[in-house]
């Protein structure tokens, strides 16, 4: 029997979220394929209190560049689910994600990189190159807390002011359209796109992936209400981007579909939520992939996981 450690975050909100997911994995998967699942922390691993045969990595990695937990696991020669340091850190960087995506033939909105410390110069640059409304976000933040929508010059000024603690931020045009997100799962050697997840915003036109802004309510619709051609196009882009940034096992790509049906990728998440309320497992379930099978797919696609 193999011991599978479910690696959770150490502290803060991240730890709380990953612990909920870990409890769910244990409840759903205990005994699967003869494996014993246990919850572990990085501190326990480092102190050698436990040496699991493999790890389900749900340490979302707010630390460093996002590739820290996979780095530790790889260096300790512990097989683990999900992306390695390379893909995790590329996905966390919004500009590098574009370079890898564009190299694979995927369209991305234009952007400018600005230094908020020189806000006058940055403001002029954004207005001339991007125009308003614009979205401003830190290049490499995992959370969407510090994402700002600037509809006019005054909002742009205050957004830049609020973002002074970041060394570099990225400004992009605010894209009107429907927000969708597409999960990708590696299963039996194939890279599968899951049914498209739609995001409906109630009461507040600006609360979305582009700008989590205001107090409106978000509602996910699976599958999204899109025609087949549009859905297929979105799924193809998600699979292409997953491969372009070298993701392993799973990922989820956020996009905006314009009223004309054009797709613009916003970002890719190398560690999409797989907790009890997450959308990713719900989308997988629509393909008949029930939760334990989802975890089993992640374990089989993980680096060197085939040995266990």
């Amino acid at each position, binding site marked *: 029997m193999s011991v599978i450690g479910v690696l959770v975050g150490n502290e803060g909100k991240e730890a709380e979220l990953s612990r909920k997911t870990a409890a769910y994995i244990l409840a759903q998967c205990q005994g699967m394929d003869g494996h014993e699942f246990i919850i572990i922390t*990085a501190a326990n691993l*480092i*102190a*050698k209190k436990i040496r699991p045969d493999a790890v389900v990595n749900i340490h979302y990695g707010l*630390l*460093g*560049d*996002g*590739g*820290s*937990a*996979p*780095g*530790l696991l*790889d*260096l*300790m020669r512990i097989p683990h689910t999900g992306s*390695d*340091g*390379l893909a*995790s*850190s*590329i996905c*966390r*960087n919004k*500009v*590098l994600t*574009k*370079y*890898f995506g*564009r*190299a694979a033939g995927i369209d991305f909105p234009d952007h400018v990189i600005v*230094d908020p410390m020189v806000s006058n110069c940055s403001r002029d640059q954004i207005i001339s190159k991007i125009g308003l409304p614009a979205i401003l976000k830190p290049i*490499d933040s995992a959370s969407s807390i510090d994402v700002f929508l600037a509809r006019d010059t005054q909002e742009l000024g205050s957004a830049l002011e609020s973002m002074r603690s970041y*060394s*570099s931020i990225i400004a992009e045009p605010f894209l009107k359209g429907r927000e969708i997100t597409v999960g990708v799962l590696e299963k039996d050697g194939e890279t599968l796109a899951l049914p498209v997840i739609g995001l409906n915003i109630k009461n507040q036109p600006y609360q979305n992936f582009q700008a989590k802004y205001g107090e409106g309510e978000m509602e996910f619709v699976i599958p999204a209400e899109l025609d087949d051609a549009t859905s297929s196009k979105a799924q193809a882009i998600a699979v292409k981007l997953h491969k372009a940034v*070298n993701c392993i096992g799973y990922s989820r790509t956020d996009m905006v579909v314009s009223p004309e049906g054009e797709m613009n990728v916003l970002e890719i998440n190398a560690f999409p939520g797989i907790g009890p309320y997450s959308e990713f497992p719900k989308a997988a379930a629509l393909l008949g992939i029930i939760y334990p099978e989802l975890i089993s797919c992640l374990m089989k696609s993980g680096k060197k996981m085939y040995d266990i």
Partner: protein
Amino acid sequence: MTFNDLRSKKIGVLLGGKSMERSTSLRSGADVHRALLDLGFADAIKIDLDDDPIEQIVNSGIEFAFLSLHGTDYEDGKLQGALEMLAIPYTGCGVLASAVGFDKVSAKIVARGLGVSTPDWFLLKDPGSLEKLEFEGPYIIKPCAQGSSLGVQKIETVMELPEKIKPLFEEFGPVLVEKFIPGRDLTVAVVGNPGDLQVLPILEVIAPAGFYDREGKFGDETKYSAPAKIDESVRLRAEEFAKAVYTALHCKAVSRLDFRLDGDRLYFLEINTIPGMNGSTSNMSCILRAANIPYNDFVKKIILDSIS
């Protein structure tokens, strides 16, 4: 943490290890260690990494790590990620820059995304896929993820590729086939952090083989010239390209970027996020002499830029 605080702490020079670049690392590390003692780090120790680097680092009780390591596991973001998880600050680049920089294809994708020229390339993930090669020879073949010019060869015709690639593939995994660019080899060291970057005098490496292979890199017949005798316009462009790649990858403290110069056309080849630092024969030591920067001062600057 200030430099003076650090001087009273236990600082470890991590060196050696199991990589193919062990000998290069040992020489760099010995010189760095000597410099640290000169700089007043009375408690500086050398740690030659074995099969369980995490345990070694934890047991050593070090509070800061100077990375004098090269190659797989150490220069590719894994060790950096592990040190983030251990909350031990370290010198130089983080996970992102290390992981992307070590993967030659990823670094080329970023360069191209930035508008920096790089030779055409083809990545062979399995040896049978050569029929998709779309450009003509001569070629340079090299492992996608190795440093110190390991395995680098020039191949004249497409006919010779399969037999030359096979052993390389078996030893190192995915092979990068690059268009050979005639001309000169330049290497550009960038130091500092965003907002305070400095490009050191450019070094030209004149190798007898006409390109920089492993023998050229470590043989006696290779000549060095710094500052390189190049046009002012080429120098400025090389500096601009080097800073652009360094910034996009979020490099920290120091990196060395290799370019090929054909006439006045400049091509990015690769980035070394932990440049070899032996005080007498390394590229870095030639560059430091040309810049009139004493070795010990440079070691101090790396530490200062890493903790800032």
